[in-house]
């Protein structure tokens, strides 16, 4: 039984790891670097992930490129929830990893790290990261996917469903508070 499971896993993971289709999502300067990564000098197509899908229904990877404000966060969460399983997240840039230059207490508008409401697979700090760094993140994600198993993935999905619902309410609350200010 275990043997069958591992062979299925290896075939599935090989397919998943080698065709990571990212979602076209960019909110600020990291987006420029992401576009550069798919252009001629760097060429993300070598790893089979140049297919930037405009619709979240067909994407596997959410490269969150750029600052996420409290107003943008619910939309990002909705985009993530619209993506079909298995789905992965790369937090690209310092702002998405922990607020970056908006991380002081005075800053009222920026979410300090998207890991507060999304399960992030790879953190990629720098401001902004070069395309080479993005490739490193994609390759690390490929390695991570290759170690995955169907059973652990199922546990992961089950574990994160509840978190989403709770976080959703928190985000809505935050938004209301912002409107008060």
């Amino acid at each position: 039984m275990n043997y069958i499971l591992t062979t299925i896993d290896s075939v599935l993971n090989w397919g998943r790891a080698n065709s990571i289709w990212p979602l076209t999502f960019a909110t600020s300067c990291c987006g420029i670097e992401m576009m550069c990564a798919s252009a001629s000098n760097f060429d993300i197509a070598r790893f089979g992930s140049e297919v930037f899908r405009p619709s979240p229904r067909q994407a596997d990877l959410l490269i969150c490129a750029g600052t996420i404000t409290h107003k943008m966060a619910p939309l990002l969460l909705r985009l993530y929830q619209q993506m079909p399983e298995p789905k992965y997240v790369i937090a690209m840039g310092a702002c998405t990893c922990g607020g970056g230059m908006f991380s002081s207490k005075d800053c009222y508008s920026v979410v300090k790290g998207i890991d507060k409401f999304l399960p992030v697979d790879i953190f990629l700090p720098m401001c902004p990261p070069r395309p080479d760094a993005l490739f490193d993140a994609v390759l690390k994600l490929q390695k991570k996917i290759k170690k995955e198993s169907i059973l652990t993935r199922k546990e992961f999905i089950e574990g994160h469903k509840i978190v989403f619902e709770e976080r959703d309410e928190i985000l809505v609350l935050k938004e209301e508070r912002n409107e008060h200010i």
Partner: protein
Amino acid sequence: MNYLLCTLFEIKWLPDIWAVILVSVIGFGVVISLLILTVLFLVLAERKLLGFFTQRKGPNRVGLWGVLQTTADAIKLLCKENIELLSSDKFIFTIAPIMAFASVILLWCLIPYNSEFHLINSSVGVLLYFAIASLPMIFHFLAGYSSNNKYSLIGSYRSLGLTCSYSIVLMLSVMSVILVSGTMDLDKIVLFQSKTWMIFSNVLGFLIFFIATLAKLNRCPFDLSEAESEIVCGYHTEYSGMRFAMFFLGEYAELFVMSMLVVILFFGGYLPPFGMYLANAFMGNCEFCSYLIYFEQTIWLFIKTLIIVFVIIWIRATLPRLTQVSTLNMFWKYIIPISIFNLIMIIMMRALW
């Protein structure tokens, strides 16, 4: 086909009706396996070629030169979650991608691959082809309509508008071909071109047909119905996993089969370009050669088709997208009058000969 049927008829313990069924099943299996192999190859070829046109390398990590890239994509898409929308019209939503792909498979069965292997041999082959070729568009519309999404609906309306503009042009240019060759049978159209290809007697018709083909395939510069920068993904915005793959593969299969039709109508189909088979030229008239010729015919058809496909990908890498209004303007104001002029010229030439 007939040869295979005769050999099966000679087997005594096999009833005749089973022989007929077996032959059609074998033929269909050959066509399906051809289709899947070519489509897998074609998606990779497009990604590689687009890479070369923009001075990139294209996929090169999976397998040798990235040969297995599309296989990995297929495995991934097969095992992805299929999202069913609560607000969608469920029956149409599930059946639309299947029917769109099935109608493209039917198109593949209508093509004469060589002088023997012709699965559906009809005396009105061209007419049948275009009757079936209009089906995928209807299912694209139904997909956009049933998924209850504004972007899908806009995409499907755009594809309907595009159909209104290109289909008249397509039929007018095909009519000129039928007038020159005097038959609607695809086999006879191919054999008519054994001396000179149709393109030399009908250049204008070919150009018009090629432009209309681009519009029919939703390719650049007419990819309005799935314009990624305007409406999210067009009619397949809400489709995920294997259902999306059905649309995706169906599109590429249609691209290849339309290019095959262009070759059959204008470039002599499965006939060799210099009037003589290579098998005969090298090995003389032996019995083995007569079997080898069938394979050679298919190879010639595929080589010519791949050249046409290359041109279509080249156009995609070069041209920007037209707007809906300018597409309609172009087709109705300029190309339809030109194609009617072409048709009248062909009729006059036929009358004078």
